[in-house]
């Protein structure tokens, strides 16, 4: 997992590419995005949507 904080005004090419018109805007793996702070469960839901989740197993790492 990688997590970047990007100052939108200093990287206008990225801001334009990801259509950043309001902040904070969160983009996960190009296709999943949302604007604004989210509760942890909702945020991780977006991450799961973007990266896919294997079926639950009793032992996770």
């Amino acid at each position, binding site marked *: *997992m*990688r*997590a*970047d*904080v*990007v*100052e*939108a*005004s*200093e*990287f206008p090419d*990225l*801001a334009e590419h*990801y259509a*950043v018109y309001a*902040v*904070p*805007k*969160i*983009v*996960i*793996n190009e296709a999943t995005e949302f604007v604004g702070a989210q509760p*942890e*469960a909702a945020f*991780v839901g977006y*991450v*799961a949507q*973007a*990266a*896919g*989740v*294997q*079926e*639950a*197993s009793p032992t*996770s*790492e």
Partner: protein
Amino acid sequence: MAFLNDQDAAFVRKRFEDELASDVTLEFFTPSIGGLTLPGQDAEIAEYTRKILTEVAALSPRLTLNVHSMATEPEAAQRFGIARTPALALIGAADYGVRFYGMPAGYEFATLLELILDVSKAQPPLSETTKATLGRLKDEAHIQVFVTPT
């Protein structure tokens, strides 16, 4: 001119003393070091960022700042996955993939502070449910959070 006034510096120093759980290395990438770049806004932002980080790193013996030139150390940039500057890789006991692109000023200074404290901890401040979900991700997740300093 100092970025942090005495009161702010004392506050940050105290938080580092109380909350830094391990050493943190700040790997900072500028477009270049010295007189090799053309003067311009990007170079000024990178230089100002370097000064901020220098002040921050001086506030705790557990913090180390390494300044790299993108121009002369492309292999270091590649090692940390850095393709743009100014960029900061925050490395704790391991590289958790946390990066900050741009200048951490204004409200984003608080973000920098929290990132440093977070990577110093072996465990992320997340619920067990969240950690279980993240442990079962199929693909890599690349999270980009776009912010502005105001």
